[in-house]
């Protein structure tokens, strides 16, 4: 088993390196006229800098591999992701400040998604091909088809028009004032959760169906076990293993979803920070967020892979 863990962990490193190199390269390909735009729009304090100084600042004057090496060693040894163009703040600090908001949104959304999707997936599977099943399958597809920003816009507009209420726009941490915090987060988390739940619903249904065809389930039936026992004790545990994968992969979708929802609901998280940085062409921030998110995704996927070793004993012996 430890060989498996080691093997998986080692394999993650090249992926991480390649992904960061990809991000790094993209940012270095910024065309010249964009640099001019950066100069004009975002450098608040020194408007007279010329392109050469800006390039030196971004480290663009050194050869590529030197830049990349400096960058990686900077991250690994000092946690240094550079400074923002706008006001010289360290990128890492700025990201860390906004991280709790996005984390809260993501965790709430994921929990809501699972709470909604897994029961529906199970019911859909055990009542396969009934009207209920078709209804739930349609709902699942609808969930992944309806754009989250439309749903959010509708909800905000209609609650404003009918109930004369808008969600609060001033961020309050959950430990300061849980009620206010929930008022702010509940609707975006619900919408994001709905979008995510579609995929989990379908996955759960598919896996339950597959598991229920297996012989050991038939044995359980012939032993005379009741339906709930069979479902919870035998079928569910096996069916949920791939669902864990899906949840791990969902994190990628969560980040994307949070970008949209944070910008609609004015949540001061990483998503809205990213959007603002794009507008201002603040490339250290763009690069920094990409790198951090990539690292996060690779780590979560690694964790999911490793958790397989615990959940599915068959994997350990491969």
């Amino acid at each position, binding site marked *: 088993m430890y060989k498996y863990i080691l093997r998986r962990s080692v394999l993650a490193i090249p992926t991480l390196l*390649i992904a960061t190199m*990809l991000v790094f390269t993209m940012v270095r390909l910024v065309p010249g006229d964009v640099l001019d735009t950066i100069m004009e729009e975002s450098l608040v304090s020194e408007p007279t800098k010329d392109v050469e100084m800006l390039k030196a600042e971004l480290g663009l004057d050194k050869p590529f591999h030197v830049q990349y090496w400096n960058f990686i060693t900077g991250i690994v040894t000092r946690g240094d992701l550079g400074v923002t163009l706008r006001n010289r703040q360290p990128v890492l600090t700025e990201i860390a400040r906004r991280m709790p908001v996005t984390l809260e949104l993501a965790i709430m959304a994921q929990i809501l998604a699972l709470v909604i999707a897994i029961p529906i997936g199970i019911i859909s599977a055990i009542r*396969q091909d009934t009207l209920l099943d078709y209804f739930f399958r349609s709902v699942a597809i609808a969930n992944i*088809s309806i754009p989250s*920003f439309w749903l959010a*816009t*509708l909800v905000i507009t209609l609650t404003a028009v009918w109930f004369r209420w808008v969600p609060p726009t001033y961020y309050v941490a959950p430990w300061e004032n849980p009620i206010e915090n929930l008022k702010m987060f509940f609707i975006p988390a619900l919408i994001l959760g709905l979008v995510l739940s579609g995929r989990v619903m379908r996955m759960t249904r598919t896996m339950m169906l597959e598991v229920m065809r297996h012989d050991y389930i038939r044995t359980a039936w012939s032993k005379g076990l009741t339906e709930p026992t069979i479902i919870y004790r035998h079928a569910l545990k096996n069916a949920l293993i791939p669902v864990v994968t899906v949840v791990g992969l969902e994190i990628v979708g969560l980040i994307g979803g949070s*970008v949209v929802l944070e910008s609609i609901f004015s949540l001061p998280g990483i998503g809205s920070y990213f959007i603002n940085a794009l507008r201002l062409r603040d490339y250290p921030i763009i690069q920094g967020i990409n790198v951090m998110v990539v690292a996060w995704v*690779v780590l979560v996927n690694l964790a999911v892979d490793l958790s397989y070793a615990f959940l599915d004993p068959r994997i350990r012996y491969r």
Partner: protein
Amino acid sequence: MASEVSAVLADQLRRKGGMSPWWEAVHTLFTRKYLATFGLAVLVLLILTAAFADVVAPYSPVALDFPSALQAPSAQHLLGTDQLGRDLLSRMIYGARTSIFVGVGVMLIAVTLGSIVGGVSAYKGGKFDVVVQRLVDAVQSVPALLLLLTIISIIGPSMINIILALGFRAAIGDSRVVRGSVLGIMENQYIEGARAIGAGNLRILVRYVLPNIMAPIIVVGSLQLGAAILAESTLSFLGWGVPPPTPTWGGMLSNEARRFMIDAPWLAIFPGLALSLAVYGINMFGDGLRDVFDPRLRGSR
């Protein structure tokens, strides 16, 4: 996976005594899967609207008419007007054109590029495959939206750039599916046999591998269409999509338009409704296709 598809269809062929596998699939689609047929109808409607936009739309989508701004749906403007006096219905009809254009473009690039990358990677195998798969993993580790936004902020938002960027990202995802299919095919003996009689690599790929992976390619392609339309609309919503004045459904729902929605809720409802129905229909169709081509996965028939 794909070899089993062929096996299932071949079996049906033997039993029915001669209907071509494609007609079999289409037949099943129309007689059994009603929702998928509905989805196909939506898709066809979308394509027709996009193609005949000039004929169908009552007004020009860019005709500014400030005196008529923010009017509720009426006999003159069936879906109302926006903040610049443009007719919403006409904008939505031309928006269909944008969506289809981008969607189909992305789908074609994704399927072509993805098939080549995935197919060659699986066929060559060995170190080449490992390296390519690492690259694919790495690109997939960056959340799609972040990657796309970063790319577009660098190369600039325009219809072509967006189609290329979206197509590239979708191709990466597709290459995984194609690779899996091809790996499955390669385990079959007829590939070995073909090589034994001296068939060259290209011939094997085209004559033996390609027909058998068509089914998953079609399924994945149809799902890409919906995903691409949704992705383009998300980019437009965030302000990085096809630039104005080209009408695009996502752009009509963007943050700039939002401040007028309290006074004019129809601006919020209709573009989003069109988007949702279009993507929903396409996804239903793709889902039905998948059920027909890969009965094992669905478990019902």
